[in-house]
């Protein structure tokens, strides 16, 4: 067993790096879109609210794999040629940004009304109320659901195998061709690697939560 692991390690490591990379980049895009559209959904302007809602409904509704295929295979016909990584980050980011948007919105709404009122009584501008008072408090509420979302994103990054990204699944598939009889160990190893990566996300989320809520509770 150990022999096999040693032989697989270089390829699986390469795959892990690629998976981690694309997950981090997509997570950044998803968080950005989530914050932006989540706040827009609370805008007092109907048009802005509407656009944000359309984004959320559309990208939550389309199956990720279909979105990925569309971005990677169809966009080039509209003269938009993206690298595999770019296509992957765009698809994952758009998709998970839509789910994250709901988290941002509901966390903001969960901040007690009195906080808005106190900020207004101190004559803060709408932007100051949101970004100095409400959003920092909503942020803590967002951490646990975003932790789950980021784990979903990590798992979803396995779909990049379908467009031939050289991620973990791809490397395992290469190895399967060479070690057919060891498929069980190979895929079990793969599952464990993903589990470890997911645990790392949860661990960072807990650290962040502890840091942000330091002294407050």
């Amino acid at each position, binding site marked *: 067993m150990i022999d096999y692991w040693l032989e697989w390690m270089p390829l699986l490591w390469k795959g892990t790096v690629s998976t981690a990379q694309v997950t981090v980049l997509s997570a950044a895009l998803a968080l950005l879109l989530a914050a932006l559209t989540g706040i827009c959904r609370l805008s007092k302007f109907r048009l802005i609210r509407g656009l944000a809602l359309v984004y959320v409904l559309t990208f939550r509704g389309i199956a990720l794999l279909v979105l990925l295929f569309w971005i990677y295979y169809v966009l080039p016909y509209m003269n938009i040629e993206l690298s595999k990584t770019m296509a992957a980050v765009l698809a994952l980011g758009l998709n998970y940004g839509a789910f994250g948007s709901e988290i941002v919105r509901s966390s903001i709404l969960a901040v*007690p009304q*009195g*906080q808005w*009122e*106190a900020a*207004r*009584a*101190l*004559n*803060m*501008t*709408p932007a*100051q109320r949101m970004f*100095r*008072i409400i959003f*920092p*408090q909503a942020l*803590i509420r967002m951490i646990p659901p975003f932790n789950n979302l980021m784990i979903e994103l990590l798992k979803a990054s396995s779909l990049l195998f379908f467009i031939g990204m050289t991620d973990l699944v791809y490397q395992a598939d290469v190895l399967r061709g060479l070690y057919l009889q060891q498929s069980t160990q190979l895929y079990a190893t793969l599952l464990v690697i993903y589990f470890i990566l997911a645990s790392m996300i949860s661990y960072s989320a807990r650290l962040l939560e502890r840091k942000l809520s330091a*002294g*407050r*509770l």
Partner: protein
Amino acid sequence: MGTTMEKQPQTAPETVDPTVAAAEATVPMVKYTDVKKSFGDLEVLHGINLEMAAGEKIAIIGPSGSGKTTLGRMLMTLDHPTSGTIEVEGEHLWHMERKGKLVPANEKHLHMMRTKIGMVFQHFNLFPHMKVINNVTEAPVKVLGLSKEEAHDRAVEMLRKVGLEEKLDVYPAKLSGGQKQRVAIARALVMRPKVMVFDEVTSALDPELVGEVLEVIKEIADEGEMAMMLITHEMDFAREVADRVVFGADGLIVEQGPPEQIFENPQSERLQTFLRRIK
């Protein structure tokens, strides 16, 4: 004013106190004119007329659900009147004049008006993600544009006034209810409003913590410059601090006058019943 005098021959003109006449000639600090407020189908205020002079301390008392809090929230621009007008130092609060007509105020106008008004809430509403000192300096820095040092000095001064200069670097979660409320008072005071609403500031406190908060408010009242609207259930406090007591019930102002009159010699049936009940 003069014409009224002529019609009242029993009042000799020479007995008119000149300071009263001067005060009446100046613009009131706050003026509610025929203010009504509904929430959905329910009208909670049926037409309020009320004036506050500069520096005047009024206590608003009355049974719960009589719309007292709404009165204060409208002044702080948290609830807007369904009809009627509120003026602060002669300027419309919820309206602006455009080509001689009153139109609803925009955020910019409200922002300008709010510089004169402050509020302390029943549930404190401290910002839980900021230390005590930052709770107090946040608005001076961001809203008034003071330098950090200046804001810090002002904040420390206010926190000293409420007896909490020891707690600068503590988060609100670590404070008792009475301490939280005193921070909230410092936070509102530091903006130097001309009129401040105290909305049932002791109602959410444990009985043994009420005293420390009332003590602080009394001290502020004694300094005198700021007009105060004290919405309260504490009758002894109202009596001690207020220049005038306003009794509201069922969405109307039923009776008002100096504390002695209101508490010793209530005129209306409604107020008599109310005072009997709380004794």
